[in-house]
């Protein structure tokens, strides 16, 4: 059986009879103009030149007119991101690799810091000063528990050896 052609649908008995233009659940967020039916054929500004590696969603044909150029993909995390972008936004195999890449990227960040002669100051980056100032008791307890847990785990591991 053939699909109905695009020009025939208006001959279907009753076509459009009950259409109610006021039945627009997105109002007032959306000021319905009917332009949606022109799809992506709207007027566009000139394209921002692509000067960095840009990973594009495969659910669109071309890059958006403007885009951010900050931290292009690089290293192992970059390779994982490139893999992720072979799959659509519908797929877990798009999003899970991206989260994995983010975690790998943290280690790459530490390595690149050290290579640049900068040993990251974790305590200051974690904002522990704020915890110390406003949340001393809970904070000290938390640290104490974490240290205790680490000591216990280390002890157990040692005994196993």
């Amino acid at each position: 059986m053939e699909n109905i052609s695009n020009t025939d649908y208006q001959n279907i008995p009753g076509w459009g009879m009950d259409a109610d233009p006021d039945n627009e659940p997105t109002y007032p967020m959306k000021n319905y103009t009917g332009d949606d039916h022109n799809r992506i054929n709207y007027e566009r500004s000139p394209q921002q030149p692509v000067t960095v590696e840009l990973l594009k969603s495969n659910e669109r044909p071309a890059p958006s007119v403007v885009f951010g150029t900050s931290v292009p993909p690089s290293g192992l995390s970059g390779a994982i991101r490139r893999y992720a972008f072979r799959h659509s936004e519908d797929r877990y195999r798009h999003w899970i690799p991206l989260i994995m890449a983010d975690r790998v990227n943290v280690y790459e960040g530490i390595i690149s810091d050290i290579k640049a002669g900068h040993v990251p100051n974790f305590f200051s980056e974690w904002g522990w000063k704020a915890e110390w100032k406003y949340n001393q008791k809970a904070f000290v307890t938390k640290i104490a528990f974490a240290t205790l847990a680490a000591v216990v785990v280390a002890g157990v591991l040692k005994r196993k050896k």
Partner: protein
Amino acid sequence: MLAMNYRGPYRVRAEQRPMPEILHPEDAIVRVTRTCICGSDLHLYHGMVPDTRVGSTFGHEFTGIVEEVGPMVQNLKVGDHVLVPFNIACGKCNFCKQGLYGNCHESNTMATAVGGIFGYSHTAGGFDGGQAEYVRVPYADVGPTVIPPDMDPDDAVLLTDVVPTGYQAAEMGGIKKGDTVVVFGAGPIGIMAARCAWFFGPSRVIIIDHIDYRLEFARNYAKCEAYNFRSMEDPVVFLKKITDWYGADVCIDCVGCEAEGNTLQTLTGRVALMQAGAATALQWAINSVKKGGIVSVVGVYGPPFNYVPIGNVLNKGITLRANQASVKRLLPRLIEHVQSGRLSPKELITHRIPLEEVSDAYRLFSSKLDNCIKTVLVPSSKA
């Protein structure tokens, strides 16, 4: 220039970075005067948003002075003090033309499910954000709005996100005169949603959270009832009971994916990442609204999916409405509300911290320390 720099979950610092440049003829470069940390930034800070790259600068709520404009910019001139909506919007695509500035199709290459947002991961376009001394602002003729001369810049910076988001949360609720409205979350967004709900004429506004100082703040600022869900055996039953066993007319989710209060949601959503965060507040909203009621969602959830009782949405005939706020669409009305004195956003600001101390500022807001509601970061090069 000095800029916030993301190093990994819970790790950020202020660091020197190259100055931003004009990359498109409709760009402007803005020297930031004020920039806020938002609950949305916490989702990034906690490592919940996929494709948040180390080295990125966050920040989507900022005001600043125009330093440089691209050759095609017509409405802005160097020296203008502007507030910049958090959405990056072209003004020309079908979505922008219909007022959906939060859903622009020409500001995000990396994902079609979300428009471009300043400093909000590569999933939202890979733009550097405003928690810096300078920032690149694309489509400078569309979003940025000159701050009216009589307006306090502290009010202006909250018009870039908090006020429009809170207002649209209420607007999407389709509130009728006499309605009972329940707002989940007493962060800046929930507090503003509760305050703005009154513009639509309800007879009761109720806010739910588990942090007492925030509930107290909301009670005073938004003139609403405030309840702590930790003191309830079952929040849904509690809400049914206080609405004459009928359910609220409108429920608003201002919490998003880092909700607390339901162990299964927390374990699957925030620990095991088997869903895009915990959908506890949304679940409560759906289950405590009346049949035929409206649930409005502005709390942010991640891209793949969440466990929500969609069967109850069907069986109760609930209307679900949600979006990123369309800041530009709402600005004229909201500027009126602020200028007339009906709305005083700046009262939400509890902390003012130099950009240099960004690590502590994030921790303070994330851990809800020192009765923090809203934090403003101030770059030192401020005029």
